[in-house]
């Protein structure tokens, strides 16, 4: 079942991506992009990253792609325009793309990932203080939330307990406390605000200028 789901999502993701490249009509491209990104969200779910998957759905599929389609509608002169590429370019792109793919895949398969493998994500959260319900496996929303607020239940608290149980003693405990992602979170928030203002400024209605000679 798991393998089936993975293959399903992987195939639709890859196929969607390929279709995006090969399709000429922009709106169809967007549609394929939705398929691809939705499948990526599915991949996230099967990787136990349900929060990321939900965010992927909400922001990417629900937001960004709609934005893109919106852009298409604002910028196309007649319905169903397709700006055709030069066939030579397609061939060129295919060759380079295949080479690139071969390279990346070769790298992927050249490294022995198995030796580094370790399952870490949010299985046991005994460090959580009381008052929280114990999340079932695969639910990382709480951990991510607390991490974004600057507290790492998965890491510091667990470690503290581990040290307390006598494995390494207390000596390294101070160095092991990680600070979470509060600052990056804030930075990203401010960044988003700036982008919002900037985009509004860039896209504000202007009088159209005649096409330049170039």
């Amino acid at each position, binding site marked *: 079942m798991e393998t089936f789901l993975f293959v399903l999502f992987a195939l639709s993701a890859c196929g969607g991506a390929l279709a995006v490249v090969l399709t000429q009509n922009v709106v169809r491209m967007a549609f394929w992009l939705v398929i691809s990104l939705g499948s990526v969200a599915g991949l996230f779910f099967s990787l136990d990253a349900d929060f990321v998957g939900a965010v992927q759905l909400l922001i990417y599929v629900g937001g960004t792609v709609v934005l893109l389609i919106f852009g298409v509608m604002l910028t196309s002169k007649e319905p169903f325009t397709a700006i055709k590429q030069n066939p030579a*370019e397609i061939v060129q792109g295919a060759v*380079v*793309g295949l080479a*690139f793919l071969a*390279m990346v895949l070769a790298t992927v398969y050249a490294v022995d990932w198995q030796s580094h493998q370790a399952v870490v994500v949010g299985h046991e959260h005994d460090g959580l203080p009381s008052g929280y319900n114990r999340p079932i496996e695969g639910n990382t929303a709480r951990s991510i939330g607390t991490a974004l607020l600057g507290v790492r239940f998965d890491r510091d608290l667990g470690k503290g307990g581990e040290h307390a149980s006598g494995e390494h003693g207390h000596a390294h405990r101070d160095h092991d406390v990680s600070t979470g992602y509060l600052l990056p979170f804030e930075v990203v928030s401010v960044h988003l605000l700036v982008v919002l203002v900037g985009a509004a400024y860039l896209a504000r209605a202007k009088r159209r200028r005649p096409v330049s000679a170039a």
Partner: protein
Amino acid sequence: MSPEIYSEVGSLLKWLLTAAWLLPLLGFLVEIFGGYWADRKSKVPAYLAVGCIATGFLLSLIALGTWVDAADMNLWAFESAGHSAEHGEGAEHGDDHEHATVAEHDHADAHDEEHHEHASADEHHGNDPLKTAFSGTFYRLGKFGRLDVTLDWYIDGLTVAMFAMVTLIASCIHIFAIGYMSDELTEHYEDHFVHLPGGRHFHRPGRFYRFFAYLSLFCFSMLGLVLAGNIFQVFIFWELVGVCSYLLIGFYVERHSASTAANKAFIMNRVGDFGFLIGLMVIWTWFGVFQFANTDPAHADQAGLFQMVRTHDGTLVTEGEGMEKTVSLQHIEGEARPSSIPYWLLTVAGLGIFAGCIGKSAQFPLQTWLPDAMEGPTPVSALVHSATMVAAGVYLAARFYPMFTPEVLLVIAYVGCITLFIGATIALVVTDIKRVLAYSTISQLGYMMLALGVGGWIAGLFHLITHAFFKSLMFLCSGSVIHGCHHEQEMTKMGGLYKKMPITCWTMFVGVVAICGLAIPFVTLPAIGAVAFSGFHSKDAIIASALTFSSLNPVHSLLFYVPLITAGITAFYMFRMWFMTFFGKPKDHHVYDHAHESPTVMTAPLLILSFFAIFVAVGGEAGPLVTLYGAAEPAHVAMGATDAGNIGLNLPSHEQIHNFHAQAGMAALLVAFAGTLLAYLFYASGAVDPGTVKRQFESVHEFLVDKWRFDVLYDWMWQRPVHVVASWCTAFDKYVLDGLIHGSASSVVKIAQWDRKFDEAVVDRSVNVLGEVTMSVANWFRGLQTGQLRQYVMLIAVSVVSLFVLVFIFFPGQ
């Protein structure tokens, strides 16, 4: 007084006076920032200012009562019907007086005036004056080493009396100003004194609100100065007062004369303040404390200045002789402060502080700013130049009295003596009604300084208060005249105005009589003493002090004769002014026809002030005012001193002064009547023609009209030398410095020309070659820059792949 009562009374006084002090500041802030610049016709700022200062007056009255009650003194040495003219607040203090009256009733009847003097003198001789003073700290600004810079308060009889006087007079003047400044209540004020090219007058929006804001700020500064508990704080408010006077004198800033006068006042004051700063530095370096005195029994850890200089009974403990002479400083156990100060340094400090007083109180030789300051509106003149600002100098001299050595006192006396004579003589010939008053102010300030200098501490301050009342009264009267005559200030164009403005005329008469010190001779009422207006009592006291002093020190007998003669001159020029203004034939019919009595808002303050000008000093030396001061008088003054200081000065004691009192009073009265008679002959009866006299003493008249040529003197002494030095500097600049620069410039040009050849031949050529090579390479590379986004991406992909391949080819093993 127990510490509990002390702190209770002290904090009550503190809060009352602080509220009275800060209210005008509040008014100022509201008036400036309240948006009245948008509504030029609003009278609200005026009402606000009046409200603030009047509330301050009420608070001051309560404080006065509280203080009197706390000091447990008997203000009224005579038997009285329980009514004191000195403070009109009766209701609040009825209990007080009642108590005093009952206690003294029996034997007060039996004793004569003399006895009472003794009784009251003895009473406060025994007392430490600091016992009736309250001090404390508002806020510590900072501590630098052992120096505390703090905001202190110091409240004694002098403080409360000054508070009541300042707030009362300021209230009256504020009310008067509502009427006087009413022509500023417009969007288009036409200033007839500013002539623009083309015969036009200057137009501007009215500044009614601004005037009252300045007045409020001024009151705040003056009250802060009086309340200040340390010399540094005094300096701060001193400067604030200066700034306010600058703003007010220069109120009609568009008039050249006004702005010049404001500058003059400000700069003259700076000269004095320079001395003040020197004094401050001496105090800082030697005493390390700015506080006047620390009278709080709960915090007696640090002694104030007065406590350090003088012992408990007010003596100056000295050691050594001549330049080696030092003054031992009193100590509180465990304080790390110098134990003595060189005598000459203390003198320098005193002279420095007094220099500040000279500037602020317009004493010789810095007196010239005050007449020019008459350029401000008349209420300003009344407030700034009669009652408060100039009084600040006298106040400081009095407040700082314990710090002054006999040498300083002698200097003060002579400065005052010179000033009073100069002021009076110039006032003889001036024809501008306000300037007459200005010179009389200078003269009267000289009297006060003289009194302080000759040891009449109470006399000087007595005169300060009485003068404040009658001089502000006269200024307001003159303001009323000017207002009524449509801004005509020349007395030569007035005359016969008593029909047109009777209230002004007779209130002015009250002021004139008061300043001349006229009295009904040989008549003494049982409850009041001499039948006279306030000026008689205070001037009498000054003359008595001077007489005593000169009899004890025959070398300095000039210090008695000059003020005596000047008393006559005073009477002459004051009555001259009155007669010229209100009597005789109208000299300018245009002015006369349009003259009118002022509105009630202006005459009411005149009546109030004339009431006080008559009654404020009632009782004379035994009256409440003197008694009030007696409690604040420095301990060493009352008993006098013999062979004091390095110059062996004999300072009179209260008793000695009293012995000469009647004698001096008769002399002064005589001289004053003589002056009055002379004025009547000259200007009222027409028996003597002033013109003839003027022609006969042509040169003297010229000299006086030129104000003793002080402006010319200062021009010679300061401006000319500066010009000469400046021309030297110009020459030096022109010939030496410019020559050097020109020479170096031409040599640099020579070098540069040679360098240019080298540059062109060597440097430029090599750079050009490099540039050409770069250009050709860049031209070749330009082909790569297609501007096609997609090609760039493709190029990146291709590059990555080829890099990868290359890495694998060249580093296969890794």
